[in-house]
Structure formats: C-alpha cells, structure tokens
C-alpha cells in the first residue's frame, strides 16, 4: 500500500492505495466524486473520462499512483463558479444531449478537450473525436448538436424533426 496525493477539482486528496488501484477507483471511492462513471473494463466506453494536468484521459486506464501530484478535473469541476451549468453542460441540457446520464460525464469531459484544441469543429470532427465515448441512449444526434452549439455555431439548421 502506498500513499498518493493529487488535486481533484482544486481540492487536495490523499489516500493509501494498492499498486493496482485505478485512478477511476480513487476518484470515486477515495475522493467520493461519483460523477465519474465506469462503464467497461477495456478502456472502450469513455464514461470515466477526466482531465489530468489538462489532458483528457480514461481514468480506468491509469493507475492512481500515476496521478501523484497531478491536477485532476472531473465532471464535478465543470460548473461555473456560481454553481450554474458551464457552457458545455448547458448546451447538453438545451439540446437534449443526454438521457440516462451515465455516459454524460465522459461526454462532457471529452467535449471540453475537443473544444480546447478545436474551438469550432465540424460535424465530422466532432463525430471523429467522440469515437472513444459510447452512448446507448441518444444515437449521438443531440450530443453532436450540443457540442457544436457549445462551440458557438448555429445548429438551427440541423435536422431535429
């Protein structure tokens, strides 16, 4: 067992972990930030996506010890300072980009990483960037639309009905 300390959403969190303890387990169980979800065990579904030192990673694919001293941001850290929904979160609500909500934290974290690198992505670029995140509810239509809307693009011409 080894001690590990990292900053999660601005709060310093320490814990004793095994070498095999995953970052996703540390975030959920030690830090109690249960917004990060685990939907698979092969790093395919992306529900556990968080940002580590500004980079988007699947937290089930990284050991907690590898995040020693890191700055970690999870879905709980994505709202505005006054508690209102951040731009991407708000766009997901406005455009019905979620249903059961289980993949949603990973989708929002991935979308944030995309828009940081590519502030006005095309539909094709959004779809390509989302291939590491599975959603079983929405058919992706409204997720893609929400991300394009969050980037400030006019999505009113996208078929909705």
């Amino acid at each position, binding site marked *: 067992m080894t001690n590990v300390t990292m900053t999660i959403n601005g709060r310093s969190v320490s814990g004793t972990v095994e070498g095999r303890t995953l970052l996703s387990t540390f975030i959920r169980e030690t830090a109690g930030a249960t*917004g990060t979800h685990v939907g698979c065990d*092969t790093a395919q579904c992306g529900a556990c996506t968080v940002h580590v030192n500004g980079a988007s990673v699947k937290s089930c694919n990284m050991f907690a010890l590898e995040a020693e001293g890191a700055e970690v941001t999870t879905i709980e850290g994505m709202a505005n300072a006054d508690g209102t929904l951040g731009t991407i979160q708000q766009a997901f609500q406005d455009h019905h980009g979620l249903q059961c909500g289980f993949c949603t934290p990973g989708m929002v974290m991935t979308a944030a990483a995309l828009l940081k690198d590519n502030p006005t992505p095309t539909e094709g670029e959004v779809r390509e960037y989302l291939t590491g995140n599975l959603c079983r509810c*929405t*058919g992706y239509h409204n997720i893609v639309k929400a991300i394009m809307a969050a980037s400030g693009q006019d999505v009113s011409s996208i*078929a909705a009905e």
Partner: protein
Amino acid sequence: MPADGGIGAPMKRREDVRFLTGTGRYTDDLNRPGQAYVYFLRSSVAHGKINSVNTEAAGGMPGVVRIFTGADFEGVGSIPCGWQVTDKHGQPMQEPAHPVLAQGKVRHVGDPIAAVVAETLAQARDAAEAIEADIEDLPAVVDMKKALEDGAPKVHDDLTSNLCYDWGFVEENKGAVDEAFAKAAHVTTLELKNQRLVANPMEPRVAIGDFDMADGNSTLYTTSQNPHVIRLLMGAFVLGIPEHKLRVVAPDVGGGFGTKIFHYAEEAFCTFAAKQLRRPVKWTSSRSEAFMSDAHGRDHVTKIELALDADNNFTALRTETYANMGAYLSTFAPSVPTWLHGTLMAGNYKTPLIYVNVKAVFTNTVPVDAYRGAGRPEATYQLERVVDKAARELGVDPIALRRQNFITQFPYATPVAVEYDTGDYEATMAKLEEIADLSGFEARLAESKKNGKLRGLGVNCYIEACGIAPSNLVGQLGARAGLYESATVRVNATGGLVVMTGSHSHGQGHETAFPQVIAEMIGIDPSMVEIVHGDTANTPMGMGTYGSRSLAVGGSAMVRATEKIINKAKKIAAHLLEASEGDIELKDGAFSVAGTDKSVAWGDVTLAAYVPHNYPLEDIEPGLEETAFYDPSNFTYPSGAYCCEVEVDPETGKVTIERFAAADDFGNVVNPMIVEGQVHGGIAQGVGQALLEGCVYDEDGQLLTGSYMDYAMPRADDLPFYSVDHSCQTPCTHNPLGVKGCGEAGAIGSPPAVVNAVVDALQRAGKTDITHIDMPLSPSRVWAAMNQ
C-alpha cells in the same frame, strides 16, 4: 394552462442538472456502512458437471468473509419465470429450475459457481482465483437446430429434450393458411437470422443487499426498470421474504433497454447473503461479466413465406421460427417470440390469413429475453424484408406494393388476435416521402456513382403493440403478473404536488414529462410537481417501465389519480365559494363559479384541505391525496414509415448510412424533444443491429464477443444526423391521454430499412442474385456477397 410547460411543450429536462454535474445517484454510487463486496466465480465452460468446488484455501485468504456455493442455496427457491407459454398441443412449456448459484451442472459460460464475500472487491477477486472448481466438460449445444436433433446433449437432464415449447398461432388457421398458399399466384420465401444482441446499457448492473437487525427488514438496491416486480419475484419465489419485510430501491438507473427488467441471481444472492452475514453485500458487474450474465436479446432463425394473388394482394403469411432461450428461462423470455412477436405479424397490412410457428430451444448460452422492442423488431424485420423481396420478384415498386396492401379502416381486427384502434399508414408514408426527399434520390444516386460508390434506398413500415398491457388478456396468454400501472398524487397544503409513480425512469425523462401533464390538467407551473419513483417503500405497487408503457399506462394512472384530486378539490372549492359543486370550473390554477367572477385559488383550496377550519367535514375527509391503478383495455399501436439511404464501397463492402428518416405516429405527444430523443436512440440501436452488432458463440459455447473490443457498438462516426417527424397523430382511443408510446419504435423500424437499402444498392449495381444478407452487414459479409 401554463404558457410553456403543458402538454406539447419541448421542456428542457430537470433531471439533466444532476446528471450534468455528477450529482446523480446511481446504484454503484451508494455505499452502506460496513458493507462487504462479492465477486462471482463464473463458469469458463459452456456445459460441465460440477464434481467439487473446494473453497478451503480461498476461504483462508486475507479479507474473506465467507464463500458461498450452490450447496448454500439448497433450501432457497429457483429464479422464477414470469410467463408460461402453452404449446400447440395444449401442453405447458418445459420449465427448468434456475438456482441462484449453479448446482450439479454449469450450463453456460458465465453461470455463477461460487460467490466470494470479502472486505474489499480486490480481496474477493483474489480469493476467487484460489477456488478449486473441478468441472468435467460436457458436450455443449449452441446451434438451435442441432439442439433439437435426437441424441443432442441435454442442457437440463430432467427435461425430455431441449425444446421449451412448439407454439402454433393461430393453430386453428393453419389449414386455411396452407390452402391459401396452394392457390397463390406468387409465393416469396426468405430465410433469415435475427442475430443475438447484447443490450449494453452503459451502466453495468449493480446490487446491494442490506439487512436491518433492528426491524428484521431486508433492502435491495438494484439497477432495475421495475423494483416492485423484483420485490415480488425475489421475495415470494426465491427467498421467501414477505413484501412488507422487503424493500427494493432502483435509484438513478443508467439505461435499461429491457435487460434490467428481469430478476437476476445476483440480486437474490446479495439480499440472501446480507441477511446471513448481518452486513451489507455489494456487487458491481464489470462489463466483461455483463456480456456473460445480462440477458441477451433476439436470436431468432426464421423462414417466412408470403403468398400473393395475381393482383399483388397479400393473401397469406406463414412463418417458422427457432427462438433461442439460452440455458435458463429469464423472467419474460417465453413471451417474447410468441405473444410479443406472433401478434405483430400482420404489420401494417390486411393479410387475411397468418400462421406463426415458434420452437423455443434451450442451448448452452446466456439466457435470452426482451431487448428494446422484444419480439416486435423480429416480426417487423422478417415481414418488411419479405415484402421488399416480393416487390423485387414481381418487378413492382416496394412502396406501391406496401400502399396497395395497407390497412385503411380502423378499428381493425387482425388475424393474429389484436385489434388496432387507430392509425393512418398512408399519412406516415406520405410524410416519409417528404422528409426523406425521395424525389431527390436519383440526383444523389448519380453523385454517388460519380464518386465510385454504390447507393441504395430502403423503405419500410412498422407497427408496434405496446403500452403493455391489459391484465385480463395477458393473463389468458400465460402472464403470471398483472400489467396495470399505479400512481399516488399527494397535494401538499401549500399547493405543490408529489406524484409517486409505479413507472421507472432510466433515461426517459419522466421527472420532466409527467409534471407537464399535471400542469396542463390543473393550470399550474410544472415546477410545482415532483415525481418520485424507484422505491417500493414510497410508491404504490407498480409494474415498472418497459414495452413503451410509461406514459400510456403509468401516465394514465396519474391522470386518473389527478382527476380524483380535482373532483375532491372542486367540492372544497364549492364549499369555500358557497356555490354548487356542479358550477365549479378549474382553469389556470383557480376554481371559479361558472358565469360569475367568484373564484378561489388552487393554493387556498389545498390549504383548506389540510387546515379544515372552514370545510365540509360532514361530506368529505380532510387531506388531498389519491391513488389510482390503471389497467389498459387494449395495447397501443404506434406505427410509421422509415427510410434509409446507404452508400456501399464496392472495394471494401463497407456500408455508410448517408441519410435516415423516420415518420412516426405516436398519437398525442407530451414532450416532443424527449420523443425525438427516444427515436434517435432507437434508430442508433437498430442501425447497430443492422450493420455492427452481433453476439457470437463458437461451437463449444465459448463467448467470442465478450467485451467492447469484440462486440461492435455503434459510435458517433457510424451514424448521421437523423430526420424524424411525429406530426402524423392518430390519438389512441382508449387511454385518457391519447398517447401510444415511443420508446421502442426506432429499434423496431430501422433494421429492415438499412438491409433493404443495402440490397437495393447491390441490385442497382447489377448484383441481382443478392436478395438477402444476414445482419450485421459488416464489410466482410457485404464484400463476400458481392464477390461470391
């Protein structure tokens, strides 16, 4: 009426805020004080005799609390099946026992052999590796037809064979159907597979058993679509816990798609073990475990024949299906290929004579049960494929052939025992032609050709029977449960309402849509209404959410309860206004006396109900809380027409969905935004089945698609933006909201559209000998068909 929050408003979902901020409460987010963790050791072989399970070494490993095996469940009940099908000879289906942990034999890869309870999950997993299970390999049966051959290995030694039932529907019509085929001018025959799928809600299943020594009550927290059903099945049939001593909680649930309807062994185990050990026991499925323990879907092998007269009228339909049950009967498995499938075979067409034969078969595979659509996608797929094939054989336009045979008069009694109340199939087809821009196809075809791609167009119709279901009818058909729904509406003194519904939301947005209905009825803002669901301790006995039933059945119960509330509130208002009850009108959140300016606000009436100082106590009780149970008198029948345009790369066989359009008739619509989202998701699952997904076993019963590395889920770049429309509305005539249900339509309507489109593309390219390719239409399958 509220300006922006009543029926028909695309209200943003209130539940989104918690899901978007990481504050949802899914089952795995819950932890009970002092909880232990369970890990199931599962069979790695498809069929084997358990000679011994030695847990001695494992039991001494760090953190191990106790190891359970099948022997610990000798006195415990079998996981029950909720539907008994009667075969064509009038005999009940063969119904094997399903122990919580395997006893004597293992029958599929993933069958649980032992359960290790330990202080941590890692310790439980480590100890499971030290269990010595001596399992003698037995030959496995995987292929359904081989499983029915004489001398085939038997999945259950105490049954006479691997045949669960041989069902004929309608058996009395068989002779007339055969006669019609003998007289037909043309017969189109198609053999096809509706492949096995894995539902794959993104949240894996979780169960936490808890036992309270203070009152002797058990609680199960579980990822379920129907907590009351689990309480009834597990309490009464497996563990012998009366319902008043058992609480089942299904909090936020991350998608269901059918596979979270059923009562699973892991739920019973955790509840049982918690009581034995006097401490909470938690199980969280990994995705790999989900692939081998969640009930799968579909898995039909079918031969369908369509008879037509010389004028291309459908005269008869005959089908023979083999339906895989897997190794045990899951909760509703027997009903899926029979009553949820055979009754749909008329589709949108006035075919006068229909005969459906289904042989349900046990194999050494994971149990198969309802998956989004459940029987209705299987019916729609074969019917719409054979109609398309018939059009090609006859050289007629597939849309025209469909139109010619449409049912046009309603109500319409089909030859397969259901009566469609309303519909307008011509309207949805016309709408589809418009939104799919069918007139522009030739130009798009030319463009594809210029780019070296083959383009195809596929159109189909669908009908669904949902809003499940009239209890007296399903009781006659073998259901061991009623299928009503319930709601309690509690009005608080200050006017806010809490609706406790027996429906369960796991993505459908009940917390937003249900208040819209009440807002409309009372004329208040929907924010005054709170929805409570998912906990047997605080909701009336309900049957849960599946079969597109929440609004049609659960919403109707809520309407009935709210009507009772309004009726009582009118009595109170009449007293306060010193008027006759018959003169009281409710509008915009106020009660008024007709023809006068006298009125009293909603909140004043509700306050009077709880502070009854000036109150008609001699006539009515104080308080304002009502419960209603609603049992529908018929199924609801959504319908529609779908269109898919594909491009096929002739070099690789890769199919790309270029356009997808859906014109649905759901009757009245409460929240169009939510309805569209449901259709989008259904289409993606249907396209996933058509192009990507397929659960594969090898001949020894090894599961080859055991993770997302092997099972191809649809991803964002596999799909286009869809064009969906629900403006054709023929309201349901027998529920108070006139709604039909929209949850399954997309998954039912889309697979045939995709396959019809690919066959069309290949035919246009001169490959006229290709009349069918089995799903999933992977590049290798399409390429092989083109190059055979």
